[in-house]
């Protein structure tokens, strides 16, 4: 076979060329400030807008170019990655308990992180609502309708997703009130609800695509911002939001990660980045992305977009995340007791 040797050589040569091209191109990266914002799932569109505006402002103020890299995923999963070494300059997660976990397990920031920024370091809030298909064919009005047999409920896994934990607590709070504070009856109610869950995704966005794109389920328990974003993306003719009789005030916190910032020399800009969220311009972007702003003027402007409803709070009704996290979502906690997959 005279031709075979040359074919073989050529194949090897082609591979070497491909490899060197791939490696060579990989080297071109301009020097500039880079931040990594490790966030939870439904903030993709929010931080895309925030980052663009902040980079513009920062360039005008200091002349420096700043690129903010994003990583999104279930809040608990993201905290886990930061603990294992994902070098986040700032974290913007779904609940305070996940940032507490970073403090406890990796000591990357001080325990009093929540007092370093206004409003307990939560520049925006949200609540938990029900997203149903247009015309509400299953007549879902409140939490009671979610435990009925034959209703398929979509919600993510509370072990991995922050949104799912707010969903769980909203349901639990309702069930507890309904049963006059009887925890075993509340557990039975929430257990019945999770029996109706066919798919337990690992993040809020996964659940939304399960419900909206794959069209599984009758109702999605979701962040208000996530539900509104889904309607914006898929069309107002396909879904509608149902506000339950009582929900929970979801407070997603932000924090800069001191140890990483020290190493990267990004302490000042990380702080400025998070403080930007509290400015009127930041609050405006927040409201436009369906998160509830803290700023009263901006809140008034978008009042029609955010109906008021009775809301439980994590601190007043559940004793804060330090109590709620181990009690409900720790190993052997309430969720583990009521949720048996496949049963």
């Amino acid at each position, binding site marked *: 076979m005279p031709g075979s040797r040359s074919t*073989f050589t050529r*194949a090897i040569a082609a591979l070497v060329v491909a*490899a060197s091209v*791939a490696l060579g191109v990989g080297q071109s990266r301009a020097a500039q400030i880079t931040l990594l914002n490790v966030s939870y799932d439904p903030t*993709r569109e929010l931080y895309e807008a925030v980052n663009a505006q902040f980079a513009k402002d920062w360039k005008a103020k200091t002349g420096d170019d700043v690129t903010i890299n994003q*990583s999104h995923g279930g809040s608990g999963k993201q905290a886990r*990655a930061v603990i*294992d070494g994902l070098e986040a300059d700032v974290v913007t997660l779904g609940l305070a308990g996940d940032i507490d976990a970073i403090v406890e397990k990796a000591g990357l920031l001080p325990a009093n992180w929540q007092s370093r920024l206004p409003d307990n370091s939560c520049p925006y809030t949200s609540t938990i609502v029900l997203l149903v298909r247009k015309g509400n064919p299953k007549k879902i009005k409140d939490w009671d309708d979610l435990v009925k047999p034959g209703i398929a409920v979509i919600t993510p896994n509370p072990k991995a997703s922050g949104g799912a934990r707010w969903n769980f607590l909203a349901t639990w709070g309702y069930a507890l009130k309904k049963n006059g504070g009887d925890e075993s009856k509340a557990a039975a109610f929430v257990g019945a609800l999770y029996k109706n869950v066919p798919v337990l995704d690992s993040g809020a966005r996964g659940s939304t695509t399960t419900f909206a794109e794959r069209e599984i389920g009758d109702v999605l328990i979701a962040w208000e911002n996530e539900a509104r974003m889904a309607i914006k993306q898929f069309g107002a003719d396909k879904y509608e939001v149902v506000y339950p009789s009582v929900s929970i005030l979801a407070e997603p916190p932000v924090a800069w990660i001191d140890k990483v910032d020290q190493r990267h020399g990004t302490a000042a800009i990380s702080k400025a980045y998070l403080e930007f969220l509290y400015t009127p311009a930041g609050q405006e972007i927040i409201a436009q992305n369906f998160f509830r702003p803290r700023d009263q003027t901006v809140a008034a402007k978008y009042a029609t977009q955010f109906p008021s409803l009775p809301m439980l709070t994590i601190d007043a009704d559940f004793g804060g995340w330090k109590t709620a996290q181990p009690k409900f979502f720790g190993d052997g906690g309430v969720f583990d007791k009521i949720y048996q997959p496949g049963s």
Partner: protein
Amino acid sequence: MASPMQNELKRPGTADPPAVRIALITIALLFVALFIFIPVIAVFAEALRQGIGVYFAAIIDPEARAAIRLTLMTAAIAVPLNVAFGIAASWAIARFDFPGKQLLLTLIDIPFSVSPVIAGMLFVLLLGVRAPLGGWLADHGIRIIFAEPGIVLATIFVTFPLAARELIPIMQAVGSEEEEAAIVLGAGGWQMFFRVTLPNVKWGLLYGMVLCNARAMGEFGAVSVVSGHIRGHTNTMPLYIEILYNDYQFAAAFAVSSLLTLLAIATLIAKYYLERRVVPVKTEQDDLAVKVAA
């Protein structure tokens, strides 16, 4: 003796009733159409649904380019290493008898039998900042996990049996006679390797490279665990596709999918080309075998 036996062997194949033949062919074609052809067409149709402009915009997006670059780079590192390991391991196993040979064979298969997610977790456990080794590396400013090296490592782990598994049976079948002859005729070690050993296994080796390349570019589970999903930096093409899908950018997700599919098809064409090159050799040997038997 030889010819009646050959006829006997041939008869069952040709004597099947036409109905059976047609049914089998139909089932095979139907399967191919249902599980391969239609989905591939669907990927391209979905990718082009919003027009060719959107398609190209999705592919030349900086984050998409970064994902493509990382995927190609990962494959470019994983494949040569895989080849080096494959040759070394198959050589050792085919040529030498040593204690623990069976164990080595079993160990080579571990990446096949372990779920890729576990492979990823293994690297996080070993090299994450909270592990002794990972902590030491982090103190010295070396980032492995949640950076490009972690992705390359995870890919190497899940692909490393591929070339070895192709080469071991070929090396064993070829035997060592030709190599011994080369040595007797005065060849040096490297001379023998490049003139005799390598040419004997080259098609198997290239086939192993093709398989390894396909897996390296398509791997999801293991790299997902070690990636950290930093946009524009640690997303390979499969990870980037998932992100686009979750961003509600379905057309862009399918555009990048189609590109990955094209890479896979290119790999398949390479494999087809290689297989065609092997066939003449086989018939030559068969003819020889027939002649010898006669």
